[in-house]
């Protein structure tokens, strides 16, 4: 039960998972996500539950923007989650989520290695669940390579290389979902804000999660 709940903590991209029937199924699941989350995205993920004194949920999610589909823009998030406190219906868990994100435009290419830290807590019913999540998302190092266009039109002497901490965001999320036997469905919505609490280009995110327990 706790392990299943933890699945909802996995990552920024897709981690809405019900808890109710997880014990009746194996430790693995695959899932698909789509929605508006820093762009119109579609992605897939895999998760695995390891029992180490308490459940440890590991997941990997990869998604890409689907407008003018181009794999040069992508996001991969690995996550490890573990409960901190829990009861039959309520739980609070922590999450660490290393990530890799990349965007390529006519001006530059930015690839960022980062890490997300967060807490998720909430109510878990027999079938339905509601969770709230708070977290931070920090880019530790970003490789920036400028395109000729940027050098010609804006700044010829722009420096290519690894930059430290180009972005820090806070995230607040709400997850609601349900599980029916092996199928799980959930909606994840919320907001990401900069360190100065400013919203981004798209002020809210909302993504649908559909999973299949193996």
């Amino acid at each position: 039960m706790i392990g299943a709940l933890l699945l909802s903590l996995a990552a920024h991209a897709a981690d809405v998972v019900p808890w109710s029937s997880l014990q009746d199924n194996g430790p693995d699941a695959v899932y698909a996500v789509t929605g508006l989350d820093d762009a119109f995205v579609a992605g897939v993920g895999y998760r695995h539950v390891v029992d180490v004194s308490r459940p440890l949920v590991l997941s990997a999610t990869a998604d890409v923007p689907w407008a003018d589909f181009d794999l040069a823009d992508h996001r991969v998030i690995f996550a490890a989650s573990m409960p901190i406190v829990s009861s039959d219906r309520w739980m609070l868990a922590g999450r660490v989520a290393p990530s890799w994100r990349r965007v390529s435009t006519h001006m530059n290419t930015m690839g960022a290695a980062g890490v997300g830290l967060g807490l998720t807590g909430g109510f878990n019913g027999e079938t339905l669940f509601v969770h709230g999540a708070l977290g931070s998302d920090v880019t530790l190092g970003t490789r920036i390579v400028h395109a000729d266009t940027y050098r010609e039109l804006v700044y010829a002497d722009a420096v290519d290389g690894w930059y430290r901490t180009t972005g820090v965001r806070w995230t607040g999320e709400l997850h609601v979902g349900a599980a029916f036997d092996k199928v799980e469905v959930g909606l994840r919505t919320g907001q990401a804000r900069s360190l100065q609490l400013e919203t981004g280009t798209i002020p809210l995110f909302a993504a649908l999660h559909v999973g299949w327990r193996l």
Partner: protein
Amino acid sequence: MRTLAVLSVLSIACLDPDDPGNLVPPTVTEDASLPRIELPDTVLHGEQMGDPDGPIVVMLHGGPGGDYRYLLPMGALADDGYSVVFWDHRGAGLSQRHDAADFTWDVPVEDLRRVIEHFTTHEDQPVLFVGHSWGAMYATWFINEHGDYGGRVRGAVLSEPGAFTRDQLEPYLERLFGSMDFFGEQVNDTAWKDQIMTPADHARADYLFAITATSLPAEHVDPNDPEPMWRGGAVVNDTQLSMAMEDGFDWTTNLHTFTPEVLFLRGELNEAMPLWHQEELASAYPNARVHTVEGVGHAVIWERRAEFLAETRAYFNTLDLSGGTR
């Protein structure tokens, strides 16, 4: 400890995105070699070309938050005996950066007045404006405040202004942003970078502005001949647009006092600023005419610089510029 060591190495080995010159060029406060205009409370990036005693042509760039790099071909007016003044507005281009709190309604017009005075060599020296986009709005704002400035402002070339009032601004922005493809690559790229870089510092905010600043489909800008820029002033752009939308403005209340002819120079293809729109704006002036440059959009001053220059010269030649030494 190991984590701390890794973070320390990252911190030392990696570049700082906020250091001047890394991602965006240094401003006048960071590069002493840049030409400048020193005002009491700010330093502007600016320069003068031509005869300093000739009629002053004040070039006003777009934005808010753009810069004068794309206007430089108009420096050819210096060959005609004009004193051509280029400057990046407060907080824009290579001018000194300012925080949002430094921008109030009385600042921009006073900056422009001070720039005029900075380059004035004699009392009755004529002044002419050439403004593009936001710059054309800026010129109108000044004229509404100061009229012909004691008889010194003798004319203005207003190219592609968006609005002179708050009521005009909203439908204009709807036409402009309504042309965006929200499912297209442009929106996608702009939003996707938000998770990699956030505007925590001026330099990063300006960098994000520069790499995402782009024309919108309704403007019909030639993708093969884009306007160059030095630095997008993200803070001034955001602040002045917010002020305009939230506080409202009406820069037409005193335009009836301005009697010299005003030339509106527009691009035929700009769907956000169709002919009727520019004629509506021109009607706020008692003496204005609209000239359309065919086959070009919003970037008419850059993409058709020779034609723009010729029209400007022809227009200036019709004006009374007595007091200048041409």
